[in-house]
């Protein structure tokens, strides 16, 4: 009895493996501190999968099926359990995710890399990921904060700001960004009067602001989360009259900040990944047709992350995990025909015909040797209570 059960199970597995569709894990924080950002990113990623499936050109007509898992953004144990489930039980070919830097590192180190499964994160921006010992299995379509720090330092220096106080959320993201900004700013001749961490989720940030204000500088850089401590710091600064000009990073660019603070933010500057290239515009239009907000943060990165996995599988001619890993850099970089967003069908056909492609996608993806993207940043200034794009870096 047991033997026949085993045999039929094995048969069923072989049968499903024979004309199996490709499952792709979508490991994102459906709950947690960025739960409001995630739905758009996931929708964009699943849009790319749908596009590949509907083209009929993916590995001779196979489907790409998303399987969702909750990374929670902050709970490494929960994220690892979800990844474990995707890899061993759902048997995904690769994972689109995870989202926040801390859980992404944990999942890569403990689950994905040991199992030989590719991860492509759209949002994990910590510089620490660049030096992650990932055996080439971790990629990201968002740029590293090592670059955002440099861009921010350039923006700040260009505005004639010589001295600045920095406060960051006490985690991989905040610390990494604060370090890279401070280094770049000091290399450009600026002075960081104080760089202090803040904890998220406090009721009151008056003491933290008091310490930052005691430096006597006029500008405060806030590298935190818009719905958490970052907002509290800005509110407390304005309340005490300590600072009224802020330098913000991507975690702080959100409408909820404007709603909470209002016009007192005018004159503050911010950076976030993004561009206004033709490809970006094309993606926004394509996303809108599918009912997705394409210009919301990291939506383009989400689309590109999923697209890279699909194209790598096509280039390898199989949904084998190691084969996908070997092709990611090849499809994302030159040489080859440039592929924009909503052109996955064309790209799949080119690859099937044995031609090389250079995937550009929604964010002009270009991956370097360690799997980091070097896509551009938008510089925003708050004018009349609105984040207005003033320049692209």
């Amino acid at each position, binding site marked *: 009895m047991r033997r026949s059960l085993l045999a039929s199970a094995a048969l069923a597995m072989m049968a499903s493996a024979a004309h199996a569709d490709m499952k792709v894990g979508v490991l994102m924080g459906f709950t947690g501190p960025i739960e409001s950002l995630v739905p758009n990113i996931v929708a964009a990623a699943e849009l790319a999968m749908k596009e590949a499936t509907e083209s009929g050109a993916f590995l001779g007509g196979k489907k790409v099926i998303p399987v969702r898992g909750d990374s929670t953004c902050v709970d490494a144990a929960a994220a690892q359990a979800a990844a474990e489930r995707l890899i061993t039980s759902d048997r995904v070919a690769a994972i689109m995710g995870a989202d926040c830097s801390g859980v992404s590192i944990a999942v890569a180190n403990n689950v994905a890399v040991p199992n030989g499964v590719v991860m492509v994160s759209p949002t994990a921006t910590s510089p620490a990921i660049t030096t992650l010992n990932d055996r080439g299995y971790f990629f990201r379509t968002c740029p590293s904060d090592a670059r955002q720090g440099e861009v921010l330092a350039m923006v700040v220096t260009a505005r004639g700001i010589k001295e600045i106080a920095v406060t960051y959320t006490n985690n991989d993201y905040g610390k990494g960004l604060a370090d890279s900004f401070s280094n770049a700013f000091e290399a450009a001749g600026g002075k960081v009067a104080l760089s202090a961490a803040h904890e998220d989720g406090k009721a009151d940030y008056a003491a933290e602001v008091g310490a930052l204000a005691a430096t006597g500088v006029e500008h405060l850089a806030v590298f935190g989360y818009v719905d958490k401590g970052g907002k509290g710091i800005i509110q407390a600064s304005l*309340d005490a009259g300590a600072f009224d000009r802020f330098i913000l990073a991507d975690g702080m660019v959100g409408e909820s900040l404007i709603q909470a603070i209002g016009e007192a933010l005018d004159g503050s500057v911010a950076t976030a990944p993004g561009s206004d290239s033709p490809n970006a515009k094309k993606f926004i239009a394509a996303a809108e047709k599918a009912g997705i907000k394409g210009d919301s943060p990291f939506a383009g990165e989400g689309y590109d992350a999923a697209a890279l996995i699909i194209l790598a599988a096509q280039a390898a001619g199989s949904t084998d995990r190691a084969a996908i890993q070997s092709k990611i850099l090849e499809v994302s970089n030159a040489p080859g025909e440039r592929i924009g967003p909503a052109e996955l069908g064309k790209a799949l056909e080119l690859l099937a015909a044995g031609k090389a492609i250079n995937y550009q996608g929604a964010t002009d993806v270009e991956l370097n040797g360690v799997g980091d993207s070097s896509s551009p940043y938008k510089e925003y200034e708050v004018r009349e209570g609105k984040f207005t794009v003033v320049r692209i870096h």
Partner: protein
Amino acid sequence: MPVDLVNALVLLANFVVVPAIAYGSQIALGALGVTLVYGILRFANFSHGDLMAFGTMVVILATWQLQSRGVSLGLLPTALLALPAGAAATIIVSLAADRTVFRFYRLKRSAPMVMSIASVGVMFVLNGVVRIIIGPDDRSFSDGARYLINAREFRSLTGLEEGLSVRVSQALTVAVAVVAVSALFWFLQRTRAGKAMRAYSDNEDLALLSGVEPDRVVRMTWIIAASLAATAGTLYGLDKSFQPFTYLQLLLPMFAAAIVGGIGQPLGAIAGGFLVAFSEIALTYPYRKFLRYLLPEELHPDGLAQLLSTDYKLSVSFVILVVVLLWRPTGLFRGRIA
């Protein structure tokens, strides 16, 4: 007075004195509730912080209702109108907790420690209820004017370099605390029920023999403690922000305040509240700028001149607690409810 001295004092007022007075009033109101329950019912009530969260939650829900109907108090926050509803709900919950949990142990004359542990259970239940009803996130419910004086206005008004800002919520906290404390002392000193409560606290058996009705005293105690909890919680939420778990963190400063003042002593709770608040803020404030105004150039500090990093703010009350228990375990004011 030289301008530098005025600047230094304004700076200190803005970052230390004004915030500490508001925070101290909030702690004092909370500690009063803790101390009353300890003095009369004879146990440390760990559920007091979550009682505050519960009261504030009801106030928030009622405030949203009022706001959606277009009711407002103009410059004052609408939450003041909703406060009676919050207090009433908190009274009902605490009386229910007493009837279902604490009465059982009281009738058995259980040790105070047993009742305190039972109150931890009540704390967890209340904590869960609040999270289920309103969720764990940050909720904002303040409206009306934000500032009494804002730093920028103060600067242009006085021509000083330093600004002083006083928020409406801070002024309101102090005003409400003064009213609530005066009413409480009047009640305890002048009314028959208040005298009965003091008698019961002094000597339970003697009070019973003299015809004091114990159930009535217990009920009055919970009604007062719950009203204070709802008021303190709402003022804290208005002044800072409402998140259910921050009220759990308030438990430590509140107990420190109650014990420093001499537990069971209403006056002590108020003094303790201000002592804890001023220590927390004054010890973690960096005096760099302050000293720069006062000292001659060559003595200017390079560092922040900060005694403790702001990360250690919560531990200040813990240290105060330990020091008081070691050197003056009875607290600043001795004895039972005066």
